[in-house]
């Protein structure tokens, strides 16, 4: 039953019946003096505050949707430990293990690196097919600091004008610290992951193999 007011709105925030009439209409007169003394004390200050409503209509700002961020809903086929096929990007065609969903909604994924060269990486759900193959990742603990900020671009040390000119042909300088950290985290996750993968016969070879389509194959008829 929806609680409706026995008042009749004349305009936003203004009803036909005033305070005392509403008191009678709502039946509150029945419950006067029925509460304990403590209750009465609490009620009083509240009433005083709201006794006078503002002369002009006070418009409440509409609830803002800006700060309520929820990660995108995961497709039903994707659960931690699912083997995913990456469809686009540098690692297209690779089969990879899904670890967890990050706050931004992107999926955290690992090759494991030793098997197919895919490091700890973020991937968008839309660019991935969830297969029915699952790996038991209950024993794999992803370090807490591996989140969206972890994957932010790291600028290499800025080079002076002259140096930059001479270094044009050389490979870009990689931040050594950053690299070491990444390797350490990769190792931490992969040792547990590899154990789980090795426990399943042929899973290692499966993850090593790439997904591809050949003539005559129809993806809409395939069961992944």
């Amino acid at each position, binding site marked *: 039953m929806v609680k409706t007011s026995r008042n009749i709105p004349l305009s936003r925030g203004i009803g036909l019946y005033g305070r005392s009439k509403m008191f009678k209409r709502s039946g509150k007169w029945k419950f006067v003096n029925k509460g304990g003394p403590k209750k009465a004390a609490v009620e009083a200050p509240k009433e005083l505050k709201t006794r006078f409503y503002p002369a002009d209509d006070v418009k409440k700002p509409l609830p803002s949707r800006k700060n309520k961020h929820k990660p995108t809903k995961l*497709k039903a*086929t994707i659960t931690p430990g699912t083997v995913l096929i990456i*469809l686009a990007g540098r690692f297209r065609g690779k089969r990879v293990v899904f670890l967890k969903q990050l706050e931004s909604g992107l999926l955290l994924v690992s090759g494991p690196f030793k098997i197919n060269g895919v490091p700890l990486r973020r991937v968008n759900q839309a660019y*991935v097919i*969830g297969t029915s193959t699952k790996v038991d990742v209950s024993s794999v603990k992803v370090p807490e600091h591996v989140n969206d900020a972890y994957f932010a671009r790291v600028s290499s040390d800025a080079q002076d004008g002259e140096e930059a000119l001479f270094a044009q042909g050389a490979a870009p300088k990689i931040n050594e610290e950053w690299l070491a950290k990444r390797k350490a985290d990769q190792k931490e996750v992969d040792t547990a992951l590899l154990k789980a993968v090795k426990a399943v016969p042929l899973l290692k070879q499966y993850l090593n193999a790439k997904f591809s389509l050949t003539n005559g194959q*129809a*993806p*809409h*008829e395939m069961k992944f």
Partner: protein
Amino acid sequence: MGYKRGLRNQYAHTALLKLENVNDRKDVDFYLGKRVAYIYSGKKSGEKKHRVIWGKIMRAHGNSGTVRAKFRTNLPPKAIGQKVRVMLYPSTI
């Protein structure tokens, strides 16, 4: 396969694609929204040799698995009868 058309007018903004192994209107649902690339080459060699026009599959066309696609710029008429690559993304499975 050609452009969207009535008998006497054609609308080059929408192209008709025939997908391999898709012969039914039901089967088309999987491909809706998928990105499509028409790849062609230019005359000059080097970086700009292979060029792409990206598009996406918008809706089914008829009952036999043909599909309507819209590209960022209209497909050139020489693309009629040529191969176009249908990607598997954005994927919903």
